[in-house]
């Protein structure tokens, strides 16, 4: 593991990371400050000014109920980001633990768990997500659970290999014979090893989580109207695509920007933490 300072320098030199980090930071700021910087209340209707194209008083235009699209995009972005982050955090909470348990347990239990995780990952994301939402019902809480469930196998996989590699090392065996608890071993030896990769994967999967939430909303099983999410706004805008495309266009653009930003950031982070690629 490189020292903190060296990492920062490398980070700043990597154009991808910088751009990714900047856009991500900007989006975070926009999302957090959404309630204050929104020019209008995202739920307030003004049916005397509906489906108006982008203009001075409505930079992104209005939708079929006269609601300001910019304000709704900001609110939707806030929700998308929130859902993404919470589901990733849930995944981090449960996933690595699962992978480490599997590695430690070994034998049939390990095989069963890993097999099960493999099969979970063999379902296309959107399909699995829709299935979970049908079982749980719509709403933000359930979307978070659905996406977290999808992320868990990935995090589990990620922690599985390093745990396997380390658990058989001599000094671990001697530590154990000395009576050091497994927990301590995990915290001291395994976690630091997977920290870098977790960071990279989290960022990249955050991008996926945002895109997934949008897909689920687009299909109609995510957060329900009138609460705006970028996905359900694209869906609603399709009804008027021919005459008022700005509703779908701008909300979709929001999704693209958010996913792109975190992919850039993740890419950049991977570049700087992957020792193999240092040679480039």
């Amino acid at each position, binding site marked *: 593991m490189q020292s903190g300072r060296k990492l920062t320098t490398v980070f700043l030199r990597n154009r991808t990371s910088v751009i990714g980090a900047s856009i991500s930071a900007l989006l975070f700021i926009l999302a957090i400050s959404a309630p204050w910087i929104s020019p209008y209340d995202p739920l*307030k*209707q003004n*049916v*005397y000014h509906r489906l108006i194209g982008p203009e001075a008083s409505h930079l992104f235009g209005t939708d079929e109920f006269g609601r300001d699209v910019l304000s709704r995009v900001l609110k939707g972005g806030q929700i998308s980001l929130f859902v993404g982050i919470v589901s990733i955090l849930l995944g981090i909470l449960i996933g690595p633990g699962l992978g480490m348990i599997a590695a430690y347990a070994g034998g049939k239990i390990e095989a069963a768990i890993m097999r099960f995780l493999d099969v979970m990952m063999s379902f296309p994301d959107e399909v699995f997500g829709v299935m979970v939402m049908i079982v749980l019902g719509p709403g933000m809480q359930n979307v978070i659970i659905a996406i977290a469930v999808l992320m868990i196998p990935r995090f589990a996989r990620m922690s599985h290999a390093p745990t396997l590699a380390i658990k058989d090392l001599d000094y671990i065996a001697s530590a154990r014979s000395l009576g050091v608890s497994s927990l301590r071993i995990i915290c001291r030896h395994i976690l630091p090893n997977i920290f870098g990769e977790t960071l990279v994967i989290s960022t990249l999967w955050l991008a996926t989580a945002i895109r997934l939430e949008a897909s689920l909303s687009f299909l109609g099983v995510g957060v*329900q109207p009138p609460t705006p999410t970028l996905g359900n706004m694209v869906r609603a805008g399709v009804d008027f695509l021919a005459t008022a495309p700005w509703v779908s266009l701008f909300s979709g653009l929001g999704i693209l920007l958010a996913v792109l930003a975190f992919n850039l950031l993740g890419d950049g982070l991977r570049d700087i933490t992957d020792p193999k690629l240092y040679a480039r």
Partner: protein
Amino acid sequence: MKRLKGVLAIIFAVGLLPLLVTSMAFAGEKVLRIGYDAADLVDLHPHFAQTTQDRAAVQLFFSGLVRYKPGDISQFVPDVAQSWTTSKDGRTWTFQLRKGVMVHPWGNNPGYELTSEDVVYSYQSAANPAKSSRAAEYVGITFKANGPYTVVATLDEPTSPQLFLPKVAAYSAGFIIPKKPAEELGEGFRKNPVGTGPFIFKQYLPKEKLVAVRNAKFYRGVPKLAGVELLYMPDLSSRNFGLMNKELDAIEGPPSQPWVDEMHKLAGVSVDIFGPGEQGTLHFNMSMSPLKDIRVRRAIMYALSRDEVVQTIGPAIGTPAYTEAQQPQGGWMTAAELKQRGQKDKKDYLYETNRTKAKALLKEAGYPNGLTLEFFQTERGEYMIPMQNIQAQLREVGITLKFIMVDHTTWHQKIRANECSLVLYNSIRPNTDVRLTHYDYSESIVVTGKAPITNFSHVGAVDADGSGKISSIDDLIEAARRELDPKRQDEIWKQASLKLLDWASSYPMFVKKWTFARQNNMSWGYPLTTVILNSPVIDELASITD
């Protein structure tokens, strides 16, 4: 000789062929494909059919004794009955049936001629609460056959033609279900309708479409269309695209000006906006908290602006409504008249928008921070469009409406199962008597009424205003039914409407016309001004030209 006969036969056949081809060409091979805002059909039994998509379907297969003139519901014209007479006292109606009305073939049965036996069977079935959801409308009427082509209806009390003819019209329980197939198919009749209409039921693909083919033996003439397909497409953009793609000939649209504008922009497409339209009334379930409290109900009424909801729908499609009675039916009143009467009675019947007053009422009722109402809501465009605006408006006074989104079929179940606190219901009824009977008569109360229909607000069984007495207009409804003088009947219905407004049992909001978009080469066959069945009548005159 045999050889000659053979040759003659061949010549005869060959000669007939062009005739056959020409007549078929004349009859046309076009099938009308029409997309509805529905996920699926519910029930094709005409005495039960409630939803728009089902009503559109049953009029293909069934006939009544009389029918509303297609495109103009102000007149009744003959259908299966070619003529009718009334006795002087208005209590006996005699109908002469056409000859040659053929029941559609079904199963192994090639069909048969409809007679008075079938007609009597049908109206007796309509009066039976186990076999009809409109039995209450046939109380006090007896049907008898008088020979194979004559039917006599005897009424306990004299009734005006305006109130009686809808009961035997090609509408609702007036549709005639032939005896043999109805008895043979039993429950199966609901998904396999057999009647005497211009089209014959062929196939039903769940969640997809209903397929009907032309009835070549139809008594008014061979239909121009070879068949009709009703497609179930609850997704508006799919319907729009289907029309754009020319894969659909006509589509049902939402009551939405933006949608109408969008359709107007398409080349080769016409938009039909026609009335009289359905009245949208917000019903408050007075048996459920917090709507038991009249202050909460009045708060909702003061919080809402009818004009804003009408604007959401679009001024060309919607108009504000103020009374339970729908304009221009007996008992309707303008805002001005309501104001006048209010001043005289020292009550407020108009509930002009006043959000401050609304908040004050809520506070008084014990909800200073607002309240939340959660209920089932249908996905259908005609409801979602005004409801979303109502939701946004009520938010301004702290009332949060939470929708549990379900498909239209499920919603119809839920509201009739008394599971919803708030019900926005759009409907047209032939006259004010039917409307008040359905929505405000104590027997029609959902679940607990004697013959439940759609009295969602429980008028007639609860104390609406805290006066200690049951709030009921049963007596007014019955009195108006018996009243033969239209002016006095009008006034009784007005009194009923005023009471309902005072009790805040429901909030009449708007009347919205229907909207359809169709290809220019598709014609309904008549000038489309008004309909009674929520969608244009598709009969033998409808056509698609090249």
